[in-house]
C-alpha cells in the first residue's frame, strides 16, 4: 500500500505479511513512515492506494472503532479523568459487555500487568512504568487480533526498558496476540521482534529475523543500522544473488557473499564486514584462508567482554575489529593482518 500526504509519499508501495502470533518490529529513523504505516493499520490514516487484509477481510474504509485492532500510543494517551480501572474498562464498555464481564476482564488485565493494587488510582498519580502498563492493559483488554505499539518503551528510562522488554515478550507469548511494534531503537527491535521490517524513506527495505538482518543485510543502510560494521566500497565482479563474488576495492580484490543481488558486474557495491568477524592475527603473513588485509594497529579498547581494535589499512582507512576478551592483547603500532572470511562479508549495493 501507499500513503501520500499531498504529493509527498510517506509510505511508498509497502507490502507486508504478518504471521499470526508474532512480534513484528517496524524499525527506522523518525520520519521514515513507520508511524504512518501503523496509523493506517489502526485506521487513523487511509491508504492512498492498496489494501489492508485481516483474515481475508479488507480493512480499508473500516473506521478505527470497528477494527479488531488496538493501539498502544507513544504518549500512552491515558484518559486523565478516569481511574486505572476506568481506563482499562473503557474499550469493554464501548462493546456493551455486561457489568460483571467488564469487571472480570478488567481484573484479569490488572493481574496481567501486575497493577492489582492501583485500580482506583488516577493516571497522573502513576509512575512512567505503571502508566506504560496501564496503556498496555487497556489496549489488550479488548483482546484484539493485532496489537499496534507505537514506541512502547520510548518514554521509559534505560534500566526500566530492559525489564519491560522481557515482560512485553512474556505477555505476548502468553496471549498469542500478534504485536506490531514501531521503534527507532535497533537494539529494542532485536530484543523484541520475531521479525524486523526496516523502513527507510517510506519504503520497506528488508524484512527478516534479527540474525538475517545482521548477517545478511540487503542494503548499506540496514548493514549500518544494526550493530557496528566496516564498509568497503568497490566494483562488483561477475556473479549474482546467492553466490560468492569478487569486489574490486582500493584494498585489493575481496570476496564476499551476495545474498540479495547487489548489482550487475561492474556496478559499484559495498562490502559489509562485522568487526567481530574479522580475524585479527599478528604479523604481516597471511593465513591463507580467504583474503587478509595488512594493517597497523592504532589502539585497543578493553570493553569487558571483548577488546575493540582500530587498525589503519593500506589505503589509510580505519577498520574496526574485535577479539574476545582473554586473548593475548596486541600492542598499538603492531603490524597485523585482518582475515576476511567470504561467508561473513556481505555484498550490498552502494
Amino acid at each position, binding site marked *: 500500500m501507499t500513503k501520500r500526504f499531498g504529493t509527498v509519499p510517506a509510505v511508498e508501495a509497502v507490502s507486508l505479511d504478518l504471521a499470526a502470533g508474532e512480534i513484528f518490529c517496524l524499525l527506522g529513523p523518525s520520519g521514515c513512515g513507520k508511524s504512518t504505516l501503523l496509523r493506517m493499520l*489502526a*485506521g*487513523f490514516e487511509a491508504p492512498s492506494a492498496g489494501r489492508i487484509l485481516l483474515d481475508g477481510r479488507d480493512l480499508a474504509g473500516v*473506521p*478505527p*472503532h*470497528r477494527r479488531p*485492532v*488496538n*493501539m498502544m*500510543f*507513544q*504518549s500512552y*494517551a*491515558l*484518559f*486523565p*479523568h478516569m*481511574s486505572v480501572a476506568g481506563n482499562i474498562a*473503557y*474499550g469493554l464498555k*464501548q*462493546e456493551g459487555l455486561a457489568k460483571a464481564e467488564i469487571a472480570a476482564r478488567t481484573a484479569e488485565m490488572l493481574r496481567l500487568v501486575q497493577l492489582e493494587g492501583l485500580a*482506583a488510582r*488516577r493516571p497522573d498519580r502513576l509512575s512512567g512504568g505503571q502508566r506504560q502498563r496501564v496503556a498496555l492493559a*487497556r*489496549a489488550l483488554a*479488548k483482546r484484539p487480533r493485532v496489537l499496534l505499539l507505537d514506541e512502547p518503551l520510548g518514554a521509559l528510562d534505560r534500566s526500566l526498558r530492559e525489564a519491560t522488554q522481557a515482560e512485553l515478550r512474556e505477555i505476548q507469548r502468553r496471549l498469542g496476540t500478534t504485536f506490531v511494534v514501531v521503534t527507532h531503537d535497533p537494539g529494542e527491535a532485536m530484543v523484541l521482534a520475531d521479525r524486523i521490517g526496516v523502513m527507510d524513506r517510506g519504503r520497506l527495505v528488508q524484512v527478516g529475523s534479527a540474525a538475517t538482518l545482521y548477517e545478511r543485510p540487503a542494503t548499506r543502510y540496514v548493514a549500518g543500522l544494526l550493530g557496528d560494521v566496516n564498509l568497503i566500497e568497490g566494483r562488483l565482479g561477475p556473479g549474482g544473488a546467492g553466490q560468492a563474488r569478487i569486489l574490486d576495492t582500493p584494498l585489493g580484490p575481496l570476496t564476499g557473499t551476495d545474498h540479495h543481488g547487489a548489482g550487475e558486474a561492474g556496478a559499484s557495491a559495498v562490502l559489509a564486514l562485522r568487526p567481530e568477524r574479522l580475524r585479527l592475527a599478528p604479523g604481516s603473513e597471511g593465513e591463507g584462508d580467504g583474503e587478509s588485509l595488512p594493517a597497523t594497529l592504532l589502539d585497543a579498547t578493553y570493553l569487558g567482554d571483548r577488546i575493540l581494535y582500530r587498525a589503519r589499512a593500506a589505503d589509510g582507512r580505519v577498520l574496526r575489529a574485535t577479539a574476545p576478551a582473554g586473548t593475548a592483547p596486541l600492542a598499538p603500532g603492531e603490524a597485523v593482518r585482518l582475515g576476511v572470511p567470504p561467508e561473513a562479508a556481505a555484498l550490498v549495493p552502494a
Partner: protein
Amino acid sequence: MNAGARMKAGARMSAGPRRRDRLRRLLLPAVPFGWLLVFFGLPFLIVLKISLSDPATALPPYTPVLNWDGGVAAWSDFLAALDFENYRTLIADPLYLAAATTSLGVALAATVLLVLVGYPIAYGMARAPKGLQPLLVALMVIPFWTSFLIRIYAWIAILKGDGLLNKALLALGLIARPVEILNTLPAILIGVVYAYLPFMVLPLYAVLERLDRSLIEAARDLGASRLKAFLTVTLPLSAPGLVAGALLCFIPIIGEFIVPDLLGGPDTLMLGRVLWSEFFSNRDWPLAAAVAMLMLVIVAGPVVFFREAEARRLEGPP
C-alpha cells in the same frame, strides 16, 4: 575547625537569608489578601451596613451615621438603629422577588445558550490550523475595542420592528409581517448572548486547544464512535473551561443593567434595573444596598456549587 563548628558557622551565615525567605512567604499571600480586604472586604461591610440602615433626606442619604468621637454610647446608639427592615421589604414586595426570578432565569437561560453557541465555536477554533488560531482569537476579542454600550445600542437597529432582522425575515418570506422582538425577553437573551460570547468561548478554547488529540484517537481505537468519543473524553475534559466560562457569564448577567435597559423595554424587571432605579431614581440607598446583597447571595450559590464540584473532580474517587 571540626565539622560541627563548620556547620554552626554555616547555619549562622544562612540565618539572614532564611529570615528573609520567611518574610517573603508571609508577604506574598498578603498582596492578594490585602487587595481583597481593601477592595472587596471593606466595601462589602459598608454596603452591608447601608442595607441595615434607614433612608434619610441627608448627606449621606441614610441613617445612622457613626459618630467616631462619641465613644461607647455612640456605638450602642449606632448599632441599635440598625435593622432588617429593608430585607423585610424585599420579601414583602413581590416586585423584588419577581426581579430576582427574572434575573436568575435570564442568566440561566443565557448561560445555557452561551454554552450551545460557544462550544462549537471554541471547538472549531481549537481544531483550526495552528497558524490560523491567533487570528481567530483576535477576531473573537476585536469587538471589545468598541464600547459595550454602543454595541448593545446597535442591536436596537437590528431588532426593532422595521429593523434589519425583520427586513431579512420578510425578504426571505419566513414571516408575513414584522414580529416584535425588541423590548421582549428574547431580545434580552439575544443581547446578553452576543455580549458575553467571548467570555464563554475563550476559556473553552484554552482548554480544548490543550486537549491531547491522541486521547480522542485512543477512544476511537477502543471502539468509541466519534460522538461517543466526544461525550466520554472531549466533553468531560473540557469541563474546567465550561465551568469557568459559565461562571464568567452567569455572574455578571445576574446584575446586567445595560442590556435589559436598552433591549428589554420598560416592563422588564431585572435586578440590575431595580437596583439602578432604587439607587438613582428613588435615592433609597439602604434598599438598593439590600438588593445588592440579595444579588450577592444568588451569585454565590452557583459559585460555591461549581467550586465543590471542581474539588470533587480533582480529588477523584477514594
